[in-house]
């Protein structure tokens, strides 16, 4: 058995709006792209072990939609939806991202793949909507506050000095 790369994902918060995950896989780029974008593959790894994929539809073309629903052990459904903005196999997809549990929160998800020496590096970015966008959504939804604000604070919490001092 070759050593695996478990636990090697790097999660960073480069600014107030973005979350960036990077992770390397010992697999060719085309296979990694397929595993990320084809429902028959996504069904196999996306949901945690104790959760089940209930819906997994991916219409992989610009303007196409995806919809994932996971069901937790206690029967709660977690629904994610979005529309593809860019589809460039096998290196990149850009899609909108919404989670039903966080009404009013919208993000743009970017998946970038790069292969070198048989290792494919995944860079997965979630960029939450800018302030102007948020204000707009607040107006149309009548939501005064939304959990994307929580997200911003959480990012600052990741800097332990920020929470310990004071």
């Amino acid at each position, binding site marked *: 058995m070759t050593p*695996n*790369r*478990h*636990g*090697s*994902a790097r*999660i960073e918060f480069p600014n107030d709006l973005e979350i960036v*995950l990077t*992770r390397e*896989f*010992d*697999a060719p780029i085309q*296979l*990694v792209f397929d*595993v*990320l974008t084809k429902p028959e*593959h996504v069904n*196999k*790894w*996306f949901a*945690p*072990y104790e959760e089940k994929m209930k819906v997994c539809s991916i219409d992989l073309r610009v303007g196409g939609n995806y919809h994932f629903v996971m069901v937790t052990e206690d029967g709660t459904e977690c629904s994610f939806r979005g529309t593809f903005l860019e589809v460039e196999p096998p290196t990149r997809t850009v899609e909108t991202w919404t989670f039903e549990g966080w009404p009013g929160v919208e993000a743009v998800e970017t998946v970038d793949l790069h292969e070198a020496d048989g290792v494919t590096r*995944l860079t997965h970015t979630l960029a939450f909507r800018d302030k102007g966008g948020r204000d707009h959504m607040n107006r149309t939804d009548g*939501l*005064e*506050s*939304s*959990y994307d*604000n*929580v997200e*911003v*604070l*959480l990012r*600052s*919490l*990741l800097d332990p000095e*920020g*929470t*310990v*001092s*004071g």
Partner: protein
Amino acid sequence: MARSSTTSDVFNAIAEAHRRDILDALITGEKAVGEIVNGLPMSQPQVSKHLRVLSEVGLVRCRSEGRRRLYRLEPARLRPLQEWLAKYEQAWHDRMDRMDDYLSELQRGERQ
């Protein structure tokens, strides 16, 4: 989301941007209301209103020194947020690891 829980839940309390600004202002140490107001584009009544909400959920604590009321941050009360985020971080790690295992599985299958 005009829910009454705004005043009883840390998550709701910090969902308001101005309240986060007030918490940020207190990171460097205890401050009087006036000092907080000076550093932020908010009026004193606004700041006082937000401080009341933050006090109710325990994120800030107030003490009197003569006629001044001094507020300080209670960072330990932020723990639920940290735990919440840690869960998501762990979920991401796990998801990437499952994808890794699945990719290995597929590649073993291809070689056979």
